[in-house]
């Protein structure tokens, strides 16, 4: 069953050029989708468009057949789509508890929020011992866990993670991906943007390769991993950039 459809979306920042040019992608409910591609391919931009933080210049985003592009970020969140951005975007001077409460901001009933926080802490018990610590004092991996837990506060149907492994030690990366797998067992559709291609695809069901603002190819994660076009894309780029440096 399809959950998210991106139809011919073009987007960019300010007066700048299109970062995404007429991208069309479809995501299926309940799977882990991994978006890969070189720097500047438009992966993060695509997540920002879906989250409503950036308005597409043209094209539409549909959630279960209903158009959501053009809605405000808080409205899209209320539809159950949440984003964990690359910089984690925690509130550094607030405690972890307050960060989680902020995660439930769109729910006005404070008892519901407290109840939900207990549920989230049961799913991520490792967050509990940091509840009274300031978020800014946590390590990168701990912050990532809190960011995911904060996202869960809204009962999301789709969770988007932008480079969850960025800057983390390999052992910590495994813990984060293990947590992402837990999201799938909860029935949440997951979209990950990942530079760590091997790791990302290993945990994903499907892989999507973006290049120059377009969808280059897609398929089951295992097949994408083996696809010679993937090697070409990354390797080719490297050779090219080396040549540029020399020239």
């Amino acid at each position: 069953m399809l959950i998210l459809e991106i139809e011919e979306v073009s987007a960019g920042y300010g007066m700048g050029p299109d970062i995404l040019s007429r991208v069309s992608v479809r995501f299926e409910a309940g799977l882990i989708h991994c978006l890969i591609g070189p720097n500047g391919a438009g992966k993060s931009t695509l997540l920002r468009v879906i989250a409503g933080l950036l308005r597409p210049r043209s094209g539409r985003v549909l959630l279960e057949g209903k158009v959501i592009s053009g809605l405000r970020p808080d409205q899209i969140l209320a539809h159950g789509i949440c984003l964990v951005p690359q910089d984690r975007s925690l509130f550094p001077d607030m405690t972890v508890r307050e960060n989680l409460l902020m995660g439930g901001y769109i729910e006005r009933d404070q008892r519901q929020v407290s109840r939900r926080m207990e549920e989230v802490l049961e799913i991520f018990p490792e967050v509990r011992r940091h509840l009274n610590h300031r978020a800014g004092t946590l390590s990168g991996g701990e912050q990532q866990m809190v960011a995911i837990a904060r996202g869960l506060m809204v009962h999301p149907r789709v969770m988007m993670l932008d480079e969850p492994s960025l800057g983390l030690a390999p052992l910590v990366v495994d813990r984060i991906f293990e947590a992402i797998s837990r999201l799938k067992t909860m029935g949440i559709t997951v979209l990950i943007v990942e530079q760590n291609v091997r790791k990302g695809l290993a945990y994903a069901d499907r892989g999507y390769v973006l290049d120059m603002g377009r969808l280059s190819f897609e398929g089951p994660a295992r097949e994408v991993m083996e696809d010679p076009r993937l090697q070409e894309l990354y390797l080719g780029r490297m050779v090219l950039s080396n040549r540029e440096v020399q020239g």
Partner: protein
Amino acid sequence: MTSGLQILILGLALGGVYALMAIGLSLTYGVMRILNLAHAAFMVLGAYLAYWALQILHIDPLVSILINGPLFFILGIVLYRILFVPLAGRSRYTEATLLLSFGLALGIEGIMGAMWTGIYRLANPSYATRSLVFGSFYIPEGQMYATAASLGILIALWGFLQKTRLGRAIRATMQNRTAAQIVGVHVERISALAFGLGMASAGVSGSLLSFLFPFFPGKHWQWISILLSLVVLGGMGSLIGTVVGALMLAVASVYVSSALGPTWSPATFYAALFLVLMIRPQGLFGKREV
């Protein structure tokens, strides 16, 4: 010469009022990066309203807090929507709003001058001229009420920011605007709320100003200079820093006034401003902007 403890008492009492006067400036800057140069002009406007409320309607300036607060809150939200929202999304938003607030300050000064002339005013409630004496120490009665009112309002504001959903959203927006959007905060609405609160604090400070310090329409320039220097000392956009900065500079100015004479007291603020900018430009509690 006044004793050290007496200076401390008077300084802290004064600092409590300064903290209330400056807190809105700090809040507005912290949430929206708007440096509202018209803040003190609205404060003086609030003082006029309190003054006339006493003269004509016999409403005590302390009671006029209850009028000025809501009135300036609404005025703030209306002004924000009409004047500041259209500037949103500009690449030089902070600079544009700085100019806008400067123009606003001039406009309000002009209106006040046209309506109420340039002569000095000072509200004179019964307690304004009395002093309370404790042993060898004294405190002007009006000053004590003003300080108590300021602390009460500051504590209420603190409680609102710490314990309520909307208060948390304001702090969240101060710390990370994008993150606030990501968790579903409608940041424009929160900005309007913060601007309204900032203006409300200017209005209620005006009630206190009306019987503590003589004022006339152009007086706000001196006030905004004082308020800016203590906000910068505390760290732009840090609320706790603003309170600490206010207390420190108020004590320092009372000390200078007693040691060198009252004419030197305003110089304290400018000297402090220079020192802070030289030694620790981000202020005591501020963070370096990256």
